[in-house]
C-alpha cells in the first residue's frame, strides 16, 4: 500500500495506460508545456512527446469534437477540460455527437473516449466557475458518467473509463485533488462501471453522496458516530448508469436517507436518488428523503455568501439529525 493523492493516482494511471496502449493519447488546454492547470499531467509531455500529449488551442468544441472523431477511428483519446464549466462550450459535441454516434448509426462504430474534468466549488471562483453541472451529462443516454471520491477509486475507475468502448465523462473535483488515500502497490484493478459502493456500514440512516460529497458524507458519519449515531454511507461512484439497487438496499435497512450533493436541488442528481428511493423502498421509509444541495443562485464571489450557499458538514449534519428526529429516533 502507498498513500498518495487523488492527483497522483490520476497521473500514475494516465501514464500507465499510455504505456499499456499506444492508442491512448491526451489532449486538452495547457496539459503539456504548462503541465495541466491542476498538474494532473505533470511530466507527461516530457515522457511521451507532443504526439501523445497535445496542447490544444482554447477551443473546447473543436478539440472535444476532434477527440470524438479520432475515437471513431479507434484511437482512445483522454481529453482534459480544464473545469466542467468550460464543457458547456463543447456540450453540443458531447451530447449531440459523442452520445449519439453509436446508436444513430445502428451500432456500427463506438466512441471510446474519456473526458476528464473537475467540478467543485468553495474557492470563490464566482458564478461561471463554480457550477456542478454533471447532471447535464448524467441525463444523457449514451454517455457514462463516473465520479470517484478517493485516490484508489480514481485509479481503478479511470482505468475502466479508458478501456471502456463508450464515451465516459470522468468527473474529478478541485477539492479532492490534494486529498490522500491508500492505493495498493502495483494496483491493476479495473472498476466495474455502474456500481455504487457502501463505503461505511451503519444502521440508523443512509447518507448518499458522490465525488467530494461522498468524502464529506464520510466525515459527517465519523462525526456522528462519536454521538452514537450509526450512519451508512453510499458513494454513488457512477452517476450514469445509476446503481439504484445498492441505494435501495441500504435504505431498506436503515429506513431513512439524506442525499448530499454539490449541485442545485431542483432537478438535481438528488432528485433522481430520492425518486428511486420512494419507488424502491416506499414501504421501508420512516421519514421523507432529505436533500442537501447548493442554494439556487448564481454563485456569489464574496466569501460569506459563498459559504452560506454551499452544503457543508454542518448543514448535512442538521439534515441527518432532523431526519432522525422525524423518524422518532434518538438524535444523540
Amino acid at each position, binding site marked *: 500500500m502507498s498513500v498518495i493523492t487523488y492527483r497522483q493516482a490520476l497521473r500514475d494511471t494516465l501514464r500507465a495506460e499510455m504505456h499499456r496502449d499506444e492508442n491512448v493519447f491526451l489532449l486538452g488546454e495547457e496539459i503539456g508545456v504548462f503541465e495541466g492547470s491542476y498538474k494532473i499531467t505533470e511530466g507527461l509531455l516530457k515522457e511521451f512527446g507532443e504526439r501523445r500529449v497535445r496542447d490544444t488551442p482554447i477551443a473546447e468544441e473543436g478539440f472535444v469534437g476532434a477527440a470524438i472523431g479520432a475515437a471513431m477511428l479507434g484511437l482512445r483519446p483522454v481529453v482534459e477540460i480544464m473545469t466542467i464549466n468550460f464543457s458547456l*462550450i463543447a456540450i453540443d459535441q458531447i451530447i449531440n455527437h459523442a452520445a449519439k454516434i453509436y446508436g444513430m448509426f445502428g451500432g456500427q462504430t463506438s466512441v471510446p473516449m474519456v473526458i476528464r474534468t473537475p467540478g467543485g466549488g468553495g474557492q*470563490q471562483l464566482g458564478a461561471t*466557475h463554480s457550477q456542478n453541472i454533471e447532471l447535464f451529462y448524467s441525463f444523457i443516454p449514451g454517455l457514462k458518467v463516473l465520479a470517484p471520491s478517493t485516490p484508489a477509486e480514481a485509479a481503478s475507475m479511470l482505468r475502466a473509463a479508458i478501456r471502456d468502448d463508450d464515451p465516459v465523462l470522468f468527473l474529478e473535483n478541485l477539492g479532492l485533488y490534494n486529498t490522500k488515500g491508500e492505493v495498493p502497490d502495483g494496483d491493476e484493478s479495473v472498476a466495474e462501471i455502474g456500481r455504487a459502493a457502501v463505503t461505511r456500514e451503519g444502521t440508523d440512516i443512509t447518507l448518499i453522496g458522490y465525488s467530494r460529497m461522498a468524502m464529506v458524507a464520510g466525515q459527517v458519519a465519523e462525526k456522528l458516530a462519536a454521538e452514537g449515531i450509526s450512519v451508512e454511507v453510499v458513494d454513488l461512484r457512477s452517476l450514469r448508469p445509476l446503481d439504484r439497487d445498492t441505494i435501495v438496499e441500504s435504505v431498506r435497512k436503515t429506513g431513512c436517507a439524506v442525499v448530499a450533493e454539490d449541485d442545485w436541488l431542483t432537478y438535481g442528481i438528488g432528485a433522481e436518488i430520492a425518486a428511486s428511493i420512494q419507488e424502491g423502498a416506499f414501504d421501508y421509509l420512516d421519514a421523507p428523503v432529505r436533500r442537501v444541495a447548493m442554494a439556487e443562485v448564481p454563485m456569489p464571489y*464574496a466569501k460569506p455568501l459563498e459559504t452560506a450557499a454551499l452544503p457543508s458538514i454542518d448543514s448535512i449534519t442538521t439534515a441527518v439529525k432532523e431526519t432522525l428526529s422525524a423518524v422518532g429516533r434518538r438524535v444523540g
Partner: protein
Amino acid sequence: MADTAKPKGGGTARSTGGRRRSRKDTAPNIADEQPKTLLDYYRQMLLIRRFEERTAQAYTQARIGGYCHLNLGEEATIVGLMTALQERDYLFTNYREHGYAIGKGISPRSVMAELYGRSTGVSKGWGGSMHMFDTQTRMLGGYGIVGGQLPLATGAALAISYRGGDEVVMCQMGDGTTNIGAFHESLNIAALWNLPIVFVVVNNFTGMGTTVEKSSAEPELYKRGSSYRMEGVRVDGQDVLAVRDAATDLVERARAEQKPFLLEAISYRMKGHSVVDPAKYRTAEQAEEAKANDPVLAFERQLEEAGILTEEIKQEIADSVRDEVTDAADFAENSPHPEVSTLFDYTYATPVPNESRRMPADPVFAE
C-alpha cells in the same frame, strides 16, 4: 507604428485627413505632445502598476480569493485604449481587467473593494476579480469564460446600431481567445451587420503557457479579421501613444463608418497567468525580455530624457499614486461583507412566486 491588414476586395479607402498621427509612418513622438497629457498617461500607468502590485500582495495575504489575473506589463496598452474611448462608449473585457476598470473611470476604491468581496465593490462583491461591471462608466463586464464577452459586445453594438446611436463598443480579449468559436462567429456577425465595434486582441504571446505559434494557425492575429473582410491593425502595445492613436483612429472610424475593426496590441505579461502561477514554463530569456520591455519604466525613462518628468514631479506622482492605492486598500479593508440575507437578491430581476430561497440544510417543505 502600426501594421495593417486590409481586407481583400471589400476594403474601403481610408481617409486620414484630420485624424491624429495614426497614419504616419513613424511612431508618435512625445515632442508633439503636451507635457501635461504625457504626465497624465504616466500617472495612470503607474496607478495600474501599483494597484496590481497591491492586489498581488492582498491576494497572498488571503484578502482576495478566487482566480486573480493581473495587468502587470499591459499598462501602456490599457491607458492607450481607454484614452481612445469617449465616456459614452462601452467596454467589454476578459477577466484580466482591473486596469481597464480603473481606466474606464471606476474608482480604485470600488475595484479594490470588489477584489476583497465587499458590498462596496463595483459588482457589490458578487463578481470578484474577473467580473468588474459598472453601468455608470459603461464598463459592461469582465468575463471569466474565454470568448464569452465577444458575442455580448457584438450584441451591444447591435443595440447601438439598431437605435442609430453614435456610441462605439470596444471588446478586449487575449491572444488565446482568437481560437475559440465565439471569436469567429462574432467577427462574422459584426462585419455582416456593419456594427460599430472595435475588437482588441492583447497579444502577450501566451494563453496560460501555450504560445500563439502553438495555438493559432495564423499567428499574426490582426490578420484574422480578413476572413470577414475586417480591417486589422497591429500596434506596439508597449507604446502608450501608438496604442492611443491606433485605437482612436479605429474607434472614430467605427463611429463614423459604422463598421467593425480588429486591433492587435503586442504586449508583455510580466508575471504568470494568474497570481498563483510561477510561470516555470517560461525560459529565462522570455522572463528577461518581459522585464526589459517594462512599459512603465520605458515611458518613465522617455519622459525623464525629454526633461518632462523631473525628479520632483516623479516623486509627487509616486506619492499620490501610493496614497491612492493605500486609500483603495484601506477602503476595501474597512468595508462590510455582503449580508448573507442578500443571497437571493439577484437571482431574478422580475420577482415570481415559487422561486427557491432555500438554504442548503432547509427542507423543501418547511413545517
